[in-house]
Every structure is written in C-alpha cells, then in structure tokens.
C-alpha cells in the first residue's frame, strides 16, 4: 500500500496539483478578491511558460533566471492588458480579456520564427539548484512544494492584510471604497499585475516540468480549467484553492477504472469539467457572487 | 365569504429580502372604484408593497386576491392581464420608442404573442385609431411619431397613465404620480387621474403631496416600518396623533 503512495504516478499528480494551485491561487486574487473576471490569466501563464522555455532552450539560460524573466514578462503583459481593460465593465471586460487571450494563442501559433508554431518547444531542462539538476520527480516535487508554500505565504500576507481588505471592499462596493480614500483603480491594477506574475511563474514551472510545451498551454480549455478550480475551491477563499486544485486534478482519475478507447479520454475529461463547473455555479448561485452595489 | 365588491385583497403579506423584513403582515382590502392613498415615511415599504402586488418581489408570503382569485404565485405579466396596472416612480416609458409605439405596446400586451408578428392585420389599425384617440385626451396625438424621450416629465406621466387605459387595467397602482412633474403639468396629471376615478377604476396612490391625497382619497393607509399603522378616512387619519409621531417622532 505504501508503495502505491510513493509511486511515481502519485508524485506526478502531486506536482500537477502544486503547479495548478499556484496558477489558480493567483487567478483567485483577481477573480475572487478584486472581482475582476480576467480571462486572459491563462495568457500570462503561457507567456511565462514560453519565456522560460525559449530562454532556456535557445539562449541557454538557467531555469531559475529564466523563470524570473518569465515572471517579469508576464507583468509587462498584464500592464498592456490592464491598461486597456481595467476600466471596462463586466461584459466588455470579459470580451476584451478573451480577445487578448485569443490573440496570444494566434501569435504563439503563427509567429513561427520565435515560437516554432504548433511544433512547440521541446527539450526544456529542469532547474539546477546548488549544482544539482532536479531530474528526479521527487526532487522536483519538493521544489514545487517550496515554491507553492512561498506563494501561499505571500498571498496570505496580501489577503489578510490591508491590501486584501481594500480589494474586498471595492469588490463589493466600489464607490464606498473610493469615498473612504481608496485608490481603487491603482489597487485593481496592482492585483492584476501580481496575479499575472504568479500565473507566469506557474507557467514556467509547468514548462520545466513537462519539458515540452506548445500553443495549447494558452487554450481556452486551460482557462476554463483554472476557473473551475477556483470555483470549486470558492472564489476568495485562502485554502479552498488547494482543495480545488486537488479535486480537479484527481477527478479524471476515475476514468482509470473504466477501459475505453484513448480518443474518448480527452473529450470525456472536458465534459466532466464542464458539468462540474456548471453544477457548482448553479447550486451555489445565490452565494457565489453577491451583486455589486451600483449606487 | 369574501364580498364581491372587493377587487384587491391583501392578506398576511410579508416580504423578506436577504434577511431584512421589509413588509410585515400586511392586511388591506380595496373595493371596486375606491381611491386609496398610501403614505408613510421613506423606507416604510410603500414601493415594495406595490412591487409585491405587481409581482416583482421574491421572498414573499401571504395571500393576494384579485377579484377573489389568488394571484400570489402568478407572474407579473399574468397579473397585468388580469387587470393590474402600474405606474412607476421613475417613469415606465420606453424612451427609444415613439409615443405611438408606447401606446401600441400596451394594446398588444393583451394579445396572444403569435398575432403580434403580423403588422398588416386589421387589429393593428384598430389599435392605432384607439391609441390616437387616447393620446388626444392628453394632447399628445399630434406628436405620436416623435420619440418618447422628447417628452417632459409631466407628459411622460400622462402617457404612462393613459397607456394603462389602453391595457384595460382596472386596479391602478400609481407610484408618486406627481413626482418629477412641473407644477403646471401637475394639474393635468391630476385631471387625468380624476377621469380615471370617474371611470370607476380602483386607484391606489403612493404620494407625499398631502393636498392631493386630501382631494381624492376616500381612504388613507399609513405604512411605517413595513406595517400598516392606520387605515381610515382622511379626517380621522389626519387627526390621529400617531401620524405626527411617525413623521416627526415623539414630541
């Protein structure tokens, strides 16, 4: 029995949970706290992933510095998105961020000279820490665990401190927060950029783990997956996101017990995610997102 | 046994929205052709009461009888078809449509939906004639094809009320009909309401203008904190010391 729990597959799942936790927790900052429905979050993730990969493979950067630059580029990306989108209301904002995301996907597919298009970027190395490359998955798991813990710590400070309070206040009643002196535009921008940076970090981690990425990392399906994690874990919850990530990564494992042709696996997983997302939003609709006061 | 003179009967009506009790055990009866005024301080639940009668409030309990028929579960459009007409505080006029269209839509509300696809039917011509006639009563017939947004507040109010004549309403819920109306137009609005009274319609008015209430209402219902505090003829209500208390607090 113990052998099962230390088996390679379990470690693989735990790594995925860790990575997606980082991506989802950062999405939680804008979606759950600041009530910004930013559907280009996955594009930040993709920017981080591709930056890290290309720097490591084309320019022989070490993974750790590449991750750092990936994070910075994600921040830059969010500045562009935020500059345009942050002033818009719900429907326009959703459309604008989806459009941004789609544009990133189009660029990833078509700008072949840089991104290699649909061929993707292979051969991404593992990070090297203290002279050792984290080749074994167990080592990598520890690495991801440490990063995730750091992320959680940072977000803890954000959520429970005055910044989080300010975000929650303006998420509920923006004019009320403004009348108390909060610069809501700046706060939202900051949360936007922070979320994007950590999302980019998650993307870089994913790239270095699976060693090969292609434009599908920016796909809409991925965005919906991250959104589902946050909804499962409850938007605005601190630990709930961990539960959500674990639940969503482990859920499709039930298909292991059913034998079926492999071409059904992908769509079936998609279907499961879609149904889970809908059921959650439907059942919890009265409590999930209180309508913001407009007056 | 309920009297057949009752057109609207509100029984044990309570309304609770996200934990706040807005209306608490309201019991009022209205008879055919009556004109009743509803007054009370801001926040006492007057508009909410209208919303409950119109069918726009969730979270209500109790009974509502229109001509002895229970309508508490009916949708707003069903209640309208049964004879409830509503005038809204913020002018329920469709500003992007023409004045004539605002009238036509009231006629069409009573027709089965499928018939509204054919603009060449005879019914439409009849409606147009009737609409112009009604508009004539409020001096708006010559502006029938103008956009409703070009109307002044008073004219909008006139249009709103006369539109209810088109939809054959019997119980008129007027939410502050003279609010936002210039003093000159007020007289016209009042005149129009008077003609409604002459048509034996049941009028329930929310108003702050005490003179208006005095002139027309046979009865006044006073709401405070979601409860009916007084329900009597105007002289008795005016004389009641509780009225002073409600508006100005205990001396």
């Amino acid at each position, binding site marked *: 029995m113990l052998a099962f729990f230390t088996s390679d597959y379990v470690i693989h799942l735990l790594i995925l949970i860790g990575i997606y936790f980082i991506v989802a927790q950062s999405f939680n900052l804008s979606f759950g706290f600041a009530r910004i429905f930013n559907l280009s979050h996955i594009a930040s993730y993709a920017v981080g992933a591709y930056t890290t990969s290309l720097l490591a493979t084309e320019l022989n950067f070490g993974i750790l510095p590449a991750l750092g630059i990936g994070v910075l580029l994600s921040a830059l990306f969010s500045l562009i998105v935020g500059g345009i989108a942050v002033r818009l209301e719900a429907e326009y904002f959703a459309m604008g961020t989806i459009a941004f995301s789609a544009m990133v996907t189009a660029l990833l597919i078509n700008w072949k000279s840089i991104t290699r298009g649909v061929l993707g970027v292979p051969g991404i190395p593992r990070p090297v820490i203290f002279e050792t490359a984290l080749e074994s998955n167990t080592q990598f798991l520890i690495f991801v665990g440490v990063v995730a813990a750091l992320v959680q710590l940072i977000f803890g400070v954000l959520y429970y401190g005055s910044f989080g309070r300010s975000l929650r206040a303006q998420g509920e009643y923006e004019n009320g927060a403004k009348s108390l002196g909060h610069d809501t535009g700046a706060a939202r921008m900051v949360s936007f950029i922070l979320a994007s940076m950590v999302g980019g970090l998650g993307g870089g981690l994913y790239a270095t783990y699976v060693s090969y990425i292609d434009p599908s990392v920016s796909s809409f399906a991925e965005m919906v997956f991250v959104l589902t994690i946050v909804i499962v874990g409850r938007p605005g919850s601190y630990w709930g996101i961990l539960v959500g990530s674990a639940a969503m990564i482990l859920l499709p494992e039930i298909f292991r017990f059913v034998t079926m042709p492999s071409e059904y696996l992908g769509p079936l997983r998609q*279907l499961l995610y879609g149904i889970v997302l809908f059921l959650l939003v439907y059942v919890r609709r009265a409590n999930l997102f209180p309508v913001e006061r407009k007056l | 046994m309920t009297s057949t003179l009752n057109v609207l009967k509100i029984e044990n009506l309570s309304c609770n929205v996200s934990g706040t009790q807005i209306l608490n055990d309201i019991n009022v009866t209205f008879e055919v052709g009556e004109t009743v005024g509803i007054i009370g301080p801001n926040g006492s639940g007057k508009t909410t009461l209208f919303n409950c009668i119109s069918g726009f409030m969730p979270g209500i309990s109790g009974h509502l009888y229109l001509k002895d028929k229970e309508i508490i579960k009916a949708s707003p459009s069903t209640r309208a078809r049964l004879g409830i007409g509503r005038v809204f505080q913020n002018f329920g006029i469709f500003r992007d449509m023409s004045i004539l269209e605002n009238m036509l839509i009231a006629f069409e509300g009573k027709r089965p939906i499928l018939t509204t696809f054919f603009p060449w039917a005879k019914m439409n011509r009849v409606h147009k004639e009737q609409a112009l006639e009604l508009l004539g009563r409020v001096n708006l017939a010559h502006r029938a094809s103008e956009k409703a947004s070009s109307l002044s507040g008073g004219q909008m109010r006139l249009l709103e009320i006369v539109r209810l004549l088109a939809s054959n309403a019997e119980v008129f819920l007027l939410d502050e009909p003279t609010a936002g109306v210039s003093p000159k137009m007020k007289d016209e609005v009042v005149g129009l309401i008077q003609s409604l009274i002459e048509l034996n319609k049941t009028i329930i008015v929310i108003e702050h203008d005490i003179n208006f209430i005095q002139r027309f209402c046979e009865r006044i219902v006073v709401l405070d904190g979601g409860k009916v505090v007084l329900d009597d003829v105007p002289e008795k209500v005016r004389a009641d010391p509780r009225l002073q208390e409600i508006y100005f607090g205990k001396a």
Partner: protein
Amino acid sequence: MSILPQLLLNALITGGIYALVTSGLSLTFALTRVLNLAHGHLMMAGAYSFYYAYVQRGWGLFPATLFCMGSSVVLGLVTLKTFVAPFARYSVVLALVSTLAFATIIESTVSLIFDVNVKSLMVGAYPESFEWCGVFITSLQLLIIGLAIVILGILAFIVHGTGFGRFIRAFSESSVTTESLGISKSKVMGIVFIVSAMLSSLAGVLVGFETSLQPTMGNAYTLKCCAIIILGGLGNLWGTLVGAFLLGLMENLLVGLEFGSFSIPTGYKDAVAFVLILFVLLVRPEGLFRKRGRAAC
C-alpha cells in the same frame, strides 16, 4: 489590384454568414444582458445535427433541415432555461461562467459523438464556379449571400415593424415595465432564444457546406460575434449587420492584399477580429453606432 473585386465578394460571403450568426447573439444579449459565450458552439452543434441527418443517415436536404431546426429549438430552450435564466437574479459573471461551462459541455459532447476530425457537409462534388461580372462565384456562395440578405431583412422587419419586435425592444429597455403591461417575459425570451439558435444553426450549416466543420470552431465564432457586436454597438441590430460585413471585409482585405512586399499571413485571419475588439474597446467602447444600452432590470 485585380483581385480586389474577388476579395470584396469573399467579404460579402463571410459577412453574410457572420451577420446570420451574430444577429442571434445580438437579440439574446439585448434581451437578457448576458453575453452567451457558448453562442458559437450553438452554431457548431446545429451544423453537426445537420451533419448527422444529412451525411451520416443520408436523409434528404429537407428532412435534414427539419431535424436541424428541431435540434435548434431544443438547444435554444436548453440554453435559456438551464444556462441563462437561473442566473438572472444574480451577478452577470455567474451567467457568463455558466455559458462557458455550456460551451465546454457542447464541445466535448460533439467530440465524443462525432470525432474531432474535420468534416464537410458537401456530399457530392463541389459546385462549379461560374464567372459573373469579372468574379468567380459558385451557386452555393450565391445562395449564402441571398439567404443572408433575405433572412436578415425579415429579421429587421420583425424587430422594427411588428408588435413582437416592439416587445423585444421594450424588454431590452426595461423588462419590469414591459412585464407590467402584460407581456409574458418567458414566452418572448423562449421565442427569441429559439430563433437565435436556428439562425446560428443555419449559419453553421452554410459554413459546413462552404468550408468544413470541426468541434473546436465554436470559440472562434463566438469571439467574432463579440467583435461584431462591439463594433456595431451592443443591442443594436442594424449596427450588428453593418459590423458583420465590415468584419468580413477587413478579414479578407487585410489578409489578402499585399502592402508592398509585406502581407499578413493567412493564419492571422481570425486574429483580425481580436485586434478589432481591443481597438474598439480602447477607442470607443460604445461601438461605432451609438445606442443607449439600458440594463434590463
């Protein structure tokens, strides 16, 4: 420059299809203030239902069309009753998420029933193209343009010239006032959602004949519809029509023409819509045609 007329014709064809599919979204948005992010998927699903009847089962054009319209009725009602209406009282974000889930469900279900490979509705040979006023056009393309003009014309007439159209316009201004006049919200919404699904299915079928179908095509079309609606102004039907043809024009011109030695790679054709959305949102969020959009209470 001699390819310009051909490009213009292609723009007309693409624009026609876009107009057909977007008009449905424009109507449902005007009515509910919810942007149905699964709209493109409804187009795809309708087209696949036609594929099932026409290609897989070999039924004739007419029975296949009936089947497709029948599925559209079901799809339209399901969209309204299950994925949009339950969230009417709550934050619009919930409805958006719900439609996202719906899109995922539709896409995966279609992928499961039919596989993910590209499919075409054209069973026989492609129709011959004939020359007409210097451009090449096929009978199918002529049909597309013709259908688009006729159907959209009828739609515009209904919305602006009939009582039912008045109901739609009234609901988009204030649903509370409209209901208080006795007009049944559920009936009007039901009809509009059904018609919207039918229009999308028709557009999908035309695309299936003219090019091809794939379960993943839904998203791109949803985005293009959004681009068109933003261009034309949310809730404005005429603006939608003009926007659709404008988008078709821009897509075909920007990608087809050569600017000196530089021309935009065709892979970026879809991206035109995305850039357009961002540009308009940046510069003029109310759209090119200003129309006062009032939230339906």
